């Protein structure tokens, strides 16, 4: 009953508290190294995670540090490590930098870590809410910008409404099994067999609604474009990467555990996946705001990810986990590049105004292009390898039609992803008042995510092995 498995979470929380307390009351511009602390906290947490790899620790009967949770925790923490410097630089531009921001970032990351580390629905619920509450606030962080607040409101209400359903699902599971632990539920359901009627599947369906909303799968996606667009870009990046990763991890855990509930949920997810990729891609095509485009794109990406969940098995889960890893880097790279392309004094999110910027701004240009190519699934990027294995696992399980739909969707998506590259490198230059100079806080994350996108695309082996290990330790 040691609490070692909780160490990464505790590190984050402690750091958050330190920042919140230390930074409280200090005026803006006061030199309190909150970003540095946050980054350090995340780094220590990463180290803690790495230290626990391979030990399969369990804390207090509810939190596991198995390979699965550590893999996802590391993903979240990587996102955090990338987010913090970008936040420092981009928020400073908008005069929104506050210690509280990092504190919130760390607290919601702590929620994410818990979310992916538990087999217990109660923990999952509380963690989900922790994560959400933090992100709601972060979304509205630019409280002087109406769009930020509107995004926050929409996100919040949609989330509250959806989590009620999610909770209802937990309650139903509890009613029929007397347990809120995935293993306990599974055991009870196995024992009672079919005489419970439809309530268990209702419970599962309601849980799926909760996850589907969180990962922004169609038809529970509608908050996402608005929230992504309105939130400060760095928050959007964090949201798109970390929140999705964490929620997806939990979804994998749940669908991987409740196997007695038949195969109906696969059919449901099949439809959800197809809808997600199709709708996401179709809507992304007509966007001009990069954040909104990426929002729809990430809806489509969720569709692809779900292919792995539907395929199931070790292969499917490995593929999904690996894709999540790749997705994190490529998506973060895209958002960071969008920030880096900002003009002096304002964000510059309309793709149309990016004509020729790829040549004048090589690093953001290359990073954005690589992200786009990777999201489109072009080889030598991680997006390709990821899709390859996602679809491969589905083909292996006989989901040919699903894969066909998915690859055709990939084709549609190429159109808008390439459009970004096209504007960057082939568009006519648009006159503008000069760009914001790039600091290290953006350069490094850009470099890291670009490198990761390519390196993971060329040498997927080691990361794939980790993902496989994680998939094996899901149970």
């Amino acid at each position, binding site marked *: 009953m040691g609490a070692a498995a909780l160490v990464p979470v505790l590190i984050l929380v402690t750091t958050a508290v330190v920042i919140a307390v230390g930074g409280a009351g200090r005026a803006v511009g006061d030199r309190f190294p909150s970003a540095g602390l946050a980054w350090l906290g995340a780094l220590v947490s990463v180290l803690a995670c790495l230290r626990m790899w391979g030990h399969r620790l369990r804390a207090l009967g509810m939190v596991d540090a198995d390979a699965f949770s550590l893999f996802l925790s590391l993903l979240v923490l990587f996102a955090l490590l990338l987010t913090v410097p970008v936040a420092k630089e981009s928020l400073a531009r908008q005069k929104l930098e506050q210690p509280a921001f990092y504190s919130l970032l760390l607290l919601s990351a702590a929620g994410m870590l818990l979310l992916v580390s538990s087999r217990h629905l109660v923990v999952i619920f509380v963690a989900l809410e922790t994560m959400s509450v933090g992100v709601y606030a972060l979304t509205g962080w630019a409280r002087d910008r109406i769009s930020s607040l509107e995004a926050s409101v929409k996100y919040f209400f949609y989330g509250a409404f959806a989590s009620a359903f999610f909770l209802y699902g937990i309650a139903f599971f509890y009613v029929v099994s007397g347990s809120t632990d995935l293993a306990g539920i599974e055991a009870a359901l196995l024992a009672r067999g079919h005489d419970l009627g439809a309530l268990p599947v209702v419970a599962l369906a309601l849980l799926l609604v909760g996850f589907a909303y969180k990962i922004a799968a169609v038809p529970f996606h509608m908050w996402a474009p608005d929230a992504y667009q309105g939130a400060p870009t760095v928050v959007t990046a964090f949201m798109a990467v970390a929140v999705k990763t964490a929620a997806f991890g939990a979804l994998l855990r749940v669908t991987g555990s409740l196997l007695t509930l038949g195969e109906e949920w696969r059919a449901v997810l099949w439809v959800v996946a197809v809808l997600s990729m199709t709708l996401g891609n179709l809507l992304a095509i007509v966007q001009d705001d990069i954040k909104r485009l990426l929002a729809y794109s990430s809806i489509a990406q969720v569709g692809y990810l779900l292919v792995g969940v539907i395929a199931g098995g070790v292969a499917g889960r490995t593929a999904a986990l690996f894709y999540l890893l790749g997705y994190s880097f490529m998506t973060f790279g895209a958002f960071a590049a969008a920030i880096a392309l900002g003009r002096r004094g304002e964000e510059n999110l309309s793709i149309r105004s990016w004509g020729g910027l790829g040549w004048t701004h090589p690093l953001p240009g290359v990073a954005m292009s690589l992200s786009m190519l990777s999201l489109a699934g072009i080889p030598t990027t991680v997006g390709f390898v990821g899709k390859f294995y996602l679809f491969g696992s589905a083909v292996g399980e006989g989901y040919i039609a699903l894969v066909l739909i998915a690859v055709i969707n990939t084709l549609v998506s190429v159109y808008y992803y390439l459009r970004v590259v*096209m504007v960057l490198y082939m568009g006519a230059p648009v006159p503008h008042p000069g760009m914001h100079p790039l600091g290290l806080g953006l350069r490094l994350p850009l470099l890291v995510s670009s490198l990761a996108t390519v390196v993971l695309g060329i040498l997927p082996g080691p990361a794939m092995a980790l993902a496989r290990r994680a998939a094996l330790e899901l149970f």
Partner: protein
Amino acid sequence: MGLLTFLILVPLAGSVMVGISGRWAHWPRRLALSFSLVVLVLAALLWARFDPAQAEYQLVESLRWAPSLGISFLVGVDGMSLFLLLLTAFLTPLSVLASWESIQEKTAAYYALLLVLESLMMGVFLALDVFLFYVFWEAVLVPMYLLIGVWGGERRIYAAIKFFLFTMGGSVLMLVGILFCYHLQDVQTGAPSFDLRLWQGLVMSQDTQQWLFLAFFAGFAIKIPIFPLHTWLPDAHVEAPTAGSVILAGILLKMGAYGLLRFAVPLFPEGARTFTPAILTLAVIGILYGALLAMVQPDLKRLVAYSSVSHLGFVVLGIFSFDVAGVEGALFQMLSHGLSTGALFIMVGMIYDRRHTRAIEDLGGLKKSMPRFAGVFLIVLLSSMGLPGLSGFVGEFLVLLGAFQTAPPFAVAAALGVILAAIYLLWMYKRVMLGEVKNPANDHLPDLSRREGMILLPIVILILWMGVAPGTFLRPLDGTVERFVSRTPSGALEE
């Protein structure tokens, strides 16, 4: 790491160097030329080391890549790929030279992309691991997309995206096929692998073969391109910079035919057999259709593009004749087309450099001031229309010979394309080169410069060589092609 790996890595290393050299004005193109020449030397070395007597893959190199997934860096060469590799190595330096003056902006990126492209094309022809192949196959699109989109003509963006989407449209279907084969391999042997040689042992039902063949075929057919999936080609050609067109026509299209030879047919012979009549029909339609359309094109590049559609129809016809002569003819035609069409694009580029137009109606009487150019142009045209003694004839003849043995009506219909080729090419020559100089802008144009002569001379020599002594290029094919034909359903059309 052996020779084959170097063929892939040297241009890649070159592209990095070129990319870095951007701040010194003339270095990118010099470096690019040197690196591409080094690759040419390596390719020549490969030819020297190649043993024509051996039918199997040679100089095979294998590196562990992602063993748990059955992916390896597996490369090898046989008769089919040998000359395509040589062609790639040959055309790249020429493309660099062809861009020497005409590319003035962003030269470092341009030449770097050209070298990346070379590396990837080498990879396509070398890969024996299907995953590796697919990686190269798809990745080729990116540098080409950029070459067209950044350095292309007026409608370059439309053309670039069209090129990308078309070709990717086919290859995603192929991807599904690959995944399915991989799954079969996993199930049947218990060891996941992408090794092409192992895949040939897969057991498949007739139905499965048909579907898989279609999936692979979709990927390759668009690249070739086979009618009616060809409409990306004219646009891409017209808008691409000269070097882009050269490589596109010279090598990229061949990748499709190569894919058929290397993958689609040998892996799914029964599937191939089912669709042979349909494919032959499409090939013949392509031959005639491409030729007829080439006849009425107002733009030189567009004309050459449609002529490619026609010529590649012969290649497909030859492949699906499943006859040694036919397949060798198809391979020969691929090489010959690479040279002659490459030269045509280069020369159209030279005209463009002088006149800044490619519209046939703006030209005329160029021979007066450019006699040497006109002479070389004519030789290339004659080769393209299959005049005996030049490279084009041998390929076309062998293709027709092969097709005539297994599918006579198709061969006869295809032979009509030979007539049409003469019509559209000579008509074009007449309108561009001959006649009075009506537009003063066409007078007093400089004839071939030394650099331009250096580009064209090797091509002309090869065209003659291939026409007069085709044995040099046919003999190394024998073993490989016989192996290929032995795997195809004999008498595919007898039923």
